[in-house]
């Protein structure tokens, strides 16, 4: 085949029949939707019938690599898993780094899809001799780390993605793990694997990944790499809290250059933002009801980045990542080694449940990584249970005598362990807060914070209304990785793409809460660009370097031999958004139903703390956003003409 960056084929595995087929995909599909998530959206829309049960044989789960993965471009080692989500009943997607992404392409395909249900537990093994399903009884019941170790011992030089006990037990907040603790966590896709009796993918292919112009790709990588290496000394961890306080107090905001965040990420990883985020009002506290003033500066100090990095013995780089925001830590207690907890995990089990016990967070991080359970959703479930306990909806009789007081690390550990094993109260919580509230009765609804079933992340939409918009309008709702006002600043798209909103050097903080069309224009550009990134297999953090420093559009042209403009790539991102939205409509999702809940929109507004008095008018933003895409302003549904045009591409 000619060198195009992509492999031009997918693997379709029928688990019911035990058949593996290789299908050739038209170049037109890649030209219209790129690879990665775009390719998956194209495949899944056409092949999952309306009315399919997410846990049934008709659902298809796909593992896709990005178009740029393996081409010599940097920050492009993301792999994505996608299916009809059992958590939201709509478009499901999750995204992960580590070393698994190129392994998909080295099997000669851009994606591996599974339909049907295996009668017994199996795993897929692919090497140079082809693909076959193998019995998984020996690893069924094992956690994700044990599973990976056993399968790697059995298959030399293989990469593994697998589920832990949470996926096997069909927890709707379970994900897919790789590299002993990286996880494609969201949308509950681990449960889809569990329902299909699919324990793991074990990939040992060695195919070369063809590219059109390797020298140009390298030239662009050298530019990007130089920016990553620029690392001036930065403040100590204990100062990040006061910086957050300062950012809270100041009435104006300097437009963020992503280089600052890059410096933080290289020094500490995502935990760099922990205390700063709490102090500035970005991280929700006490199940979205509290504020930074409730947890307090000194308790939040337990989350300062040095508290985590001091345990780090070596940096962890995902494939093709020059940054290395991950880390391997030596820890006390049951687990001697763990991936460094990420920002989301630390704050989901920190301020969100009012816990300041760092050792407990290290333990819970590893426990959930091994179980293959989403730490954001699990943190929400714990906070939800604690608030229910506070209000008398959950009692000691429900917990077997364990009190669920805010901030008690024993209670946090108890609930997490029970969710992993699905015992007692844990069985009620292990499918996320929406179902937990349904099981507990209507008084619990107010405490169940979710967008269409998906628990949102540790970024407060009252601090950055862009989060409220993307939590509400994205086909996979409640996700912090799809867009925010801050992200748009860091992307600096206006320096590469014509027609998107330009930002000056700074603005008044109060302007973030005023009604104007710019919110929606920024949101549209965010969605389109992220779809391009996910089609390319690019990392969000790489994207924060800014479009002039990480040349996604140019890399794509060099890899595939195309000559598309940045504006044309943004249109392709829009194509992907249309498919995903149409997918939701096809499966009975009313886009309005994914709107963020009142509590996180500041309805009613908070009376103290960083986000005091703030309310986000998300309805107007949603309607504006849909209208900009040409969809119905009231319902959020794309018209037939738009959908038919996109879906006719084959």
């Amino acid at each position, binding site marked *: 085949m000619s060198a195009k960056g992509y492999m031009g084929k997918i693997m379709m595995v029928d688990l019911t029949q035990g058949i593996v087929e290789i299908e050739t995909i038209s170049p037109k599909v890649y030209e219209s939707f790129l690879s990665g998530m775009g390719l998956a959206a194209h495949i899944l829309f056409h092949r999952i019938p309306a009315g399919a049960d997410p846990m049934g044989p008709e659902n298809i789960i796909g593992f896709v690599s990005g178009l740029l993965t*393996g081409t*010599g*471009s*940097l920050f492009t080692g993301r792999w994505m898993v996608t299916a009809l989500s059992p958590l939201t009943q709509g478009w499901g997607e999750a995204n992960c780094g580590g*070393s698994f992404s*190129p392994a998909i392409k080295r099997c*000669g395909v851009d994606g591996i899809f599974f339909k049907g249900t295996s009668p017994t537990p199996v795993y897929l093994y692919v*090497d*140079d*001799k082809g693909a076959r399903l193998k019995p998984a009884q020996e690893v069924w019941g094992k956690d994700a780390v044990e599973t990976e170790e056993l399968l790697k011992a059995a298959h*030399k*030089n293989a990469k593994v993605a697998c589920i832990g006990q949470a996926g096997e037990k069909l927890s709707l907040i379970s994900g897919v793990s790789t590299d002993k603790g990286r996880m494609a966590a969201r949308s509950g896709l681990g449960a889809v694997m569990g329902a299909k009796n699919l324990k793991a993918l074990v990939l040992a292919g*060695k*195919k*070369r990944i063809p590219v059109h112009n*390797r020298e140009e*790709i*390298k030239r662009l*990588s*050298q530019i990007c*790499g130089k920016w*990553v*290496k620029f690392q001036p000394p930065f403040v100590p961890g204990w100062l990040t809290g006061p910086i957050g306080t300062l950012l809270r107090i100041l009435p104006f905001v300097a437009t963020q250059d992503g280089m600052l965040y890059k410096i933080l990420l290289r020094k500490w990883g995502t935990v760099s933002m922990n205390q700063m985020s709490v102090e500035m009002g970005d991280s929700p506290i006490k199940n979205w009801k509290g504020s930074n003033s409730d947890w307090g500066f000194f308790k939040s100090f337990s989350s300062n980045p040095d508290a985590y990095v001091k345990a*780090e*013995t*070596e*940096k962890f*780089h*995902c*494939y*093709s*990542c*020059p940054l*290395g925001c991950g*880390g391997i830590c030596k820890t006390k207690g049951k687990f001697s080694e763990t991936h460094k907890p990420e920002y989301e995990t630390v704050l989901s089990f920190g301020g969100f449940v009012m816990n300041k016990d760092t050792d407990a967070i290290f333990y819970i991080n590893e426990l959930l990584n091994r179980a293959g359970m989403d730490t954001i959703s699990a943190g929400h479930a714990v906070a939800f249970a604690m608030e229910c306990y506070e209000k008398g909806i959950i009692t000691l009789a429900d917990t077997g005598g364990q009190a669920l007081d805010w901030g008690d690390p024993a209670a946090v550990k108890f609930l997490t362990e029970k969710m992993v094993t699905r015992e007692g109260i844990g069985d009620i919580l292990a499918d996320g807060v929406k179902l937990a509230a349904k099981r507990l009765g209507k008084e619990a609804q107010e405490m169940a914070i979710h967008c269409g079933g998906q628990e949102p992340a540790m970024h407060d939409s009252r601090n950055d209304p862009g989060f409220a918009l993307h939590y509400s309008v994205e086909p996979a709702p409640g996700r912090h990785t799809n867009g925010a006002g801050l992200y748009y600043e860091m992307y600096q798209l206006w320096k590469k793409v014509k027609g998107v909103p330009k930002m000056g050097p700074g603005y008044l903080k109060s302007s973030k809460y005023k009604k104007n069309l710019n919110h929606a224009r920024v949101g549209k550009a965010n969605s389109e660009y992220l779809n391009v990134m996910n089609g390319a297999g690019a990392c969000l953090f790489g994207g924060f370097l800014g479009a002039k420093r990480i040349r996604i559009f140019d890399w794509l042209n060099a890899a595939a031999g195309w000559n598309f403009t940045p504006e044309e790539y943004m249109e392709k991102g829009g194509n992907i958004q249309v498919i995903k939205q149409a997918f939701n409509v096809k499966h009975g999702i009313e886009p309005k139903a994914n709107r963020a809940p009142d509590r996180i929109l500041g309805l009613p507004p908070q009376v103290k703390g960083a986000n005091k008095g703030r309310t986000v008018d998300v309805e107007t933003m949603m309607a504006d956003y849909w209208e900009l895409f040409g969809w119905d302003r009231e319902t959020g549904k794309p018209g037939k003409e738009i959908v038919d045009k996109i879906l006719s591409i084959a």
Partner: protein
Amino acid sequence: MAYTISDACIGCRACALICPATAISGEKKQLHFIDGQACIECGACGRVCPSGAVTDEFGLVLERIPKKEWERPYFDLSACLSCTVCLDTCPTGALTQERQKVGSTHLFPCLENEKLCIACGFCVQDCPVDAVTMGARQSAPPKEPVKAG
């Protein structure tokens, strides 16, 4: 385009034994065959073939080179970004990573098991920032001592 084996093959099996993609099949003392779909064009088969039977896509015979003369990858740690691309692209798993810079917790690639290296040069080709070169082993400088911490 994959490599091919000509009639000059004597069936010694050296190529089949070294092929990292298990793309070569054939009985001992009989003509061997390269599966074009599986071949990754690493050239190892040609480097070990004693009878000059392996040809590339242009029909040129790959030259046999004694193993002791095979070039080895050398990593320029000042340019290396620790991105692990070279580790992934190595078809034999010959590369590992370890701490090699004083005061840095980033890991850098190294050729830990020289016997596994087939001198394919994929690590050189794929390195995003040209931090890898092939050379005689003696040309590699001694490693910097590593301090804990």
